[in-house]
């Protein structure tokens, strides 16, 4: 599964993208897994209310299931327009 990071999430984690294998059932499970990996993840994911998530390029929430998913992206609230 590809995991993408944008804006300050990308800066805090230090990479724009990584590919990983996970047993996580939901986005929330994946976040918990990542937070345990390294301090930079724990910092980036410390406040989920400040984050948004897209699964296979569709906005969703942290309860979304990861079964069959190819791409998950984490980023702050959007500021386009």
């Amino acid at each position, binding site marked *: 599964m590809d995991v993408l990071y944008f804006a*300050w999430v990308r800066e805090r984690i230090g990479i724009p993208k990584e590919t990983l294998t996970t047993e996580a059932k939901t986005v929330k499970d994946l976040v918990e897994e990542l937070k345990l990996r390294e301090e930079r993840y724990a910092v980036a994911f410390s406040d989920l209310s400040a984050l948004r998530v897209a699964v296979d390029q569709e906005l969703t929430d942290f309860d979304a299931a990861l079964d069959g998913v190819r791409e998950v992206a984490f*980023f*702050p*609230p*959007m500021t386009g327009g």
Partner: protein
Amino acid sequence: MRVLVQEEAFDFGREAQAFASGHSNMGAIVTFTGVVRDSDKGGMERMVIEHYPGMTQKALETIAKDAVSRWDLGDVLVIHRHGELRPGEMIMMVATAARHRVNAFEAAEFLMDYLKSRAPFWKKEYGADGAEWVAAKDEDEDALSRW
């Protein structure tokens, strides 16, 4: 319906004219244009807009289709830039064509409200004091509850 995501500048006058001229049975044309202005505290030199290439085009198309399904519209145009921009440059535009002005106005406002908070763009401002990500505003999220 036309949705463009691009790094290059667009010619607002030409786009507006082409859009308006292409709809002679639509009585009302509304455009909105977003221009880079200085940050609230001043001193901004440039802005960089990051986006999510795999998702941006689809997200904008979804928003544009939503507008077409909610209002009686003849056409919709959305252009949004990414990359580096300077104060005074145009970031994006939307245009709507409808038989009646209320539909053209409401659809343009809807497009802007959704594009602000649901399209994957992030702005970072660079100035003499360093760089800072633009924070999303509660009022932008709240604006969605109108629709």
